[in-house]
């Protein structure tokens, strides 16, 4: 069989042991599939979405309820975005817990981390584009966090909001950031991430002499497995989109009159919980940046996995990095659960 375009995107063969689901979890590939779903459904949404304060929420209602399959498209976009956060986090965890960030993959690890930040920012800007009463608090808290940054906060806030307080300029800027400012660099970085994966020698494996089995699978088998993953992921995504619609609320009539529940989008609930403890700059900006810095420094400051231990879960040699990630993940999870508690 002659390899087609999709086959050529893959190496001719890869080690069978590291190609197993239980090793990769299929997370990186699923993330790329979800990105494609987001680009396609997002492009379809652009035919109806109107980025003005008066029309935004109404155009989403039109799309959701009056356009044939419009509600399904929106729900797919929503769920693909939420799943992308989860799948990206799982991918990050897999890479750290298998030591797959070891040189020469440290740069690609940083690229991946940057992509994770892009995913969160894209999710947050997309959330704001609803421009309904459900997002008001998150918007105000979010832009106020930017404002709290010493020296540069005022300027950054003005650049982000486009005025003294959120309004039509803000919505237009979030729209532009969502579709161009964030999505285009994220797509380029994704391509770069995939390119570096090939350039760095494909999936992380031990040196040839230390491998238990020389068995490899062909790119044809790999593409078949990916196709199966895409089919299952599509079915799961469709079911989620059908059974649980994306949230909507009444349009914002007065941006200064804050109504509704004080709640950040779910992936920032841990930050919301910390904001109760005092300084917005410290807890809302510095601490999340510190978490990011710790993750970025992880391949540089902590013991690296030895090459003989690559290609399997939980190598002993980089235990410190695994513990760091596990602790960070646990803290974020506990803070999120605390934020989900009903108010006393």
């Amino acid at each position, binding site marked *: 069989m002659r390899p087609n375009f999709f086959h050529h995107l893959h190496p001719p063969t890869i080690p069978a042991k590291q190609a197993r689901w239980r090793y990769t979890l299929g997370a990186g590939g699923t993330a790329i599939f979800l990105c494609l779903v987001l680009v396609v459904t997002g492009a379809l949404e652009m035919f109806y979405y109107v980025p003005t304060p008066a029309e935004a929420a109404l155009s989403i*209602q039109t799309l959701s309820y009056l356009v044939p399959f419009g509600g399904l498209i929106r729900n797919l976009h929503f769920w693909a975005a939420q799943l992308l956060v989860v799948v990206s986090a799982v991918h990050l965890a897999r890479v750290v817990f298998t030591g797959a960030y070891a040189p020469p993959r440290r740069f690609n690890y940083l690229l991946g981390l940057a992509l994770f930040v892009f995913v969160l920012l894209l999710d947050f800007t997309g959330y704001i584009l609803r421009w309904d009463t459900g997002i008001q608090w998150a918007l105000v808290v979010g832009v106020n966090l930017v404002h709290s940054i010493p020296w540069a906060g005022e300027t950054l806030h003005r650049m982000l909001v486009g005025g003294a307080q959120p309004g039509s300029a803000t919505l237009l800027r979030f729209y532009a950031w969502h579709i161009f400012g964030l999505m285009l660099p994220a797509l380029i970085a994704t391509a770069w991430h995939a390119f570096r994966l090939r350039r760095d020698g494909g999936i992380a494996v031990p040196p040839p002499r230390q491998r238990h089995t020389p068995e490899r699978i062909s790119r044809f088998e790999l593409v078949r497995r990916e196709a199966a*993953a895409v*089919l*299952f992921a599509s*079915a799961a995504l469709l079911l989620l989109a059908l059974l649980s619609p994306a949230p909507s609320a009444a349009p914002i009539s007065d941006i200064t009159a804050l109504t509704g529940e004080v709640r950040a989008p779910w992936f920032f609930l841990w930050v919301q919980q910390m904001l109760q403890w005092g300084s917005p700059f410290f807890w809302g900006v510095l601490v999340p940046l510190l978490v990011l810095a710790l993750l970025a420094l992880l391949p540089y400051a902590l013991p690296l996995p030895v090459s003989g231990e690559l290609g399997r879960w939980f190598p002993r040699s980089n235990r410190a990095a695994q513990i760091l990630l596990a602790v960070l993940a646990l803290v974020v999870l506990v803070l999120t659960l605390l934020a989900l508690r009903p108010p006393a």
Partner: protein
Amino acid sequence: MTRRLLLLGSAFLLIALGLAWGLEARHPEPVALTPSLTGYVEYCITCHADLPVISPSHPVETFGCVLCHGGERLALEADLAHSSMRGGGNPSALDVVEESCGGETCHGGTADDERDHIQRVQTSIQVTYTGAITSLRYTFGAQPDLLPFYGVSAVTDTSLPSHTGILQLLAFDPAMESSPALQAFGQNCLTCHIGGLPAAGEQYQRLSGCVACHSPASGEQQVHTLTTSLSYTQCNACHNRGNYDLRSMTFVERSDQAQTRLQEYYQPIAQFTRCEYTLDCVDCHTRTEAMGDGDLHASKADSQYIQCQTCHGTPSALPLTRTLSDPDDIAFRLAFLTPVVDLQLGDTILITEQGEPLWNTLVLPDGTYQLVGKATRQFFSFRPVLGSDCTQTGLDQSSASCHACHAMDR
């Protein structure tokens, strides 16, 4: 193995796609309505096609739903569609009524064109409840005289000049009262005004705001109807339900089961003439008595002024009348809204001491009078006192004086 996974994945995806198609096909076909007053399409009748038109004055093709109710006009999902409705299901609740029913071309106009219903209601005694608050504060020593200071909520008279001299009322706050009786009054009795929600218990159920009177609903049953043909039963949703006990500061529900209309009037010691229990309340009592005249009043006694003599006159004078010569006379508008009489230019009708038309009456050529029940459409004829055997003196013309001879045996 992988091929089996591919097959299984394809099967799952096909099932999910089939489900998506099936659910899409089950969505109701959106039914659009573009009311002429708003020009914006709304889809409420996709689900609410079975609701009756609320009144002939508010045709759905003209008003639609959203103009009065608010809500999300494009949403076809109940929670979202209803999330921004004004006053929940009741857009006439007094805290939102200006937005729902107001506006200068609707019911928030000026006193000059007699479309200031909302302003008048907000200052009316049925909303302020100031008579009860004032007399109880006076009785329990919280104020030295019967001057009105408090209403259920703060209100200012915006239609100056004020004929009563009361420019504003402050919000009555039971927590600021030292008397336990007044605190209990605040706790138990402030539900008796049309802005408030009724007390708990099925027997107290009524709607609040405009529909407290203008929707013929009883109990918890609500109907999508507005009417100006108010039957006495509508008034009885609040009145004639029992009596106050000033010692325990509670309301004591009447224990008897009224069998006749006469018995339905409470106040066991009070007397009633035949027309008081044969007609409906609104056949005699005017809209400014019930809905206010734009001024703040100190008590019910200051705003309710219709007496027997309004229709019957006195032994020395006929009742006041007006011959309708102006096609813009408010009598025609009122008769149009409650079409029970065919009022014509040149007709002579009775009017009140304040000049309000009793537009459902007619002075007949033989000098007698005719009244048509606004809710019952029944015809009644009656005579003036002048020329009768009545021996009442000119100084005793209140209804209580008439009851001396004309009260019915209960």
